[in-house]
């Protein structure tokens, strides 16, 4: 079952992965019931594949995907599955989640603090 606030963010080091299809790691963030806290689950994908990531998003009941560049095919597929996709987001994980929680994150946002870059 899909949870509206359950989000998945493909990761590249400690920042949002620039490419959805080349993601090897992702984090699933679930807001805690009746509280401001949240549970983060990190997942290392067995292989880099946009199809496998889409499958994971569906099986995990994700409501929102926050990612960097995503190909039209996968973007349309996820939105067709009624999953909110906030794409072309650049920035460190924590800052991006914070902005999302404040309902301020939109497609194409560049969230400040680029001091931490993935290598």
């Amino acid at each position, binding site marked *: 079952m899909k949870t509206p606030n359950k989000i998945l963010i493909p990761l*590249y080091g400690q*920042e949002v*992965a*620039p*490419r*959805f*299809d*080349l993601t090897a790691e992702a984090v699933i963030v679930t807001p805690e019931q009746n509280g401001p806290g949240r549970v983060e689950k990190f997942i290392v994908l067995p292989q880099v594949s946009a199809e496998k990531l889409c499958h994971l998003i569906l099986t995990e009941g994700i409501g929102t995907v926050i990612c*960097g*560049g*995503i*190909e*039209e095919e996968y*973007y349309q597929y996820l939105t067709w599955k009624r999953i909110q996709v906030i*794409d*072309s987001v*650049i920035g460190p994980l924590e800052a991006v989640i914070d902005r999302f929680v404040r309902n301020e994150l939109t497609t*194409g946002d*560049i969230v400040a603090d*680029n001091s931490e*870059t*993935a290598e």
Partner: protein
Amino acid sequence: MTKIPIPQITNLFGRSIQLDAMLDEIPMAIVILDPDRRIVYMNKSVSALTGYSLAEARGISCHNIIRSGACIKSCPLARIKKDSEPVCVQSDLINRDHQRIPIRITLAPLTDSDGNVTGYIESIEDIRSFNVPGEDHSHAFQFSEMIGKSPGMTKVFQMLPLIALNDSSVLITGETGTGKDLAAEAIHEASNRAKGLFIKINCGALPETLLESEHFGHQKGAFTGAVENKPGRFRLAHNGTLYLTEIGDLPLPLQVKLLTFLDDRVIYPLGSTKGFEVNVRVIAGTHRDLMQMVRDGRFRKDLLFRLNVVRLHLPPLRDREDDIRLLMDHFLNTFTRNFGRKISGFSKDALLMLKSYPYPGNVRELRNIIEYAVNVSQGARIEVPDLPAYLSEPPASVQTVPGESPPDDYPGAGRIPEHGALPVRTGANWGETEKQMILDALVKAGGRRSRAAELLGWGRSTLWRKMKLHEIG
């Protein structure tokens, strides 16, 4: 939003000019990065390609804006040092419009007057136009400039795109005139290195002393006459393909140097202790039997094994019976168009003569014959007198003492003597000799054509055609 100061170029003209105005005129995406790989500047073409404006991208890590596959998998900048040559990689990016675009990135370091790396320059080419889906540059029975429909060539055409996919060394073997150079160029054109240079070096064309300087370059003052640094062909082929033709003629000392290069991918110019890392794909070609040369001590075994990673053998024209007519028509069309002649085809006799000739010079010889014929022909068709006279003469080595084997390059060479009693007559012209050979084979085979064809080393259809030519039975 803070206003971005416009960079200026000074000391180029009398007055300073603006860098952005200059870079925006270049029809290629150009990005300037700082040493931490953050975007300092980019031109309008980058904005058009990625969807990010300079104001948005400035100060952001390159991989977040360009979003190319190469950046994510293995950043090519990590391989660049201050004295590195430019690095060229083919990849793709996904822009803000969710489009995946195939690109070619060339990266080079920017150094200050002391040689310290102060940043990088990255040029990005949109190569969608080279990869139009469904657009096939080849035609039926053709790959690049090579033509053929025989089983041997079909196999070669199937192999070429696969060979082009990777960077392994290739050894192309085949007799003279079979198209080794064309095959090497076809591999280069079909590979990711197509945008780089294709440098061809004839290993047998220069004296040994000059070859080393030509291949590996030299340092100023390395020898008398070395008045300036010379990069050498290997460095010129950086990011491209190096084709070593006639590799069998490479002198032994240079074989050692080539071997070292294939191991380390580093070039040491003559007279220099400093090495240069070079990224080239090596393709070697030869008409010689390298295994025999190894046995004779004229070619290094270890070099052969390093070059012989992928082996491509091009069949001689005599084994490509189906292709002779195809090539004849192709060359006829080419030359009639080039020379402005109106020749519709070949007469029956000319056709039979051309089809029965053994072509020791292979496709090159066939091409030359057709070029000659198109030049000489006065009529609407190519007749026997329009063909070079030597076609109707016996090959020199056939006009020998009885019992001696036919020339090595003749179909079925070496077969008839195995069976003993098919004498080759002397003193007659080739047509008569061939007719006599057929008759002798038929006699020996008791009139069975398939057996006679086997004795002659021909296919049944070849024997049938030649019997018709000589009006036998």
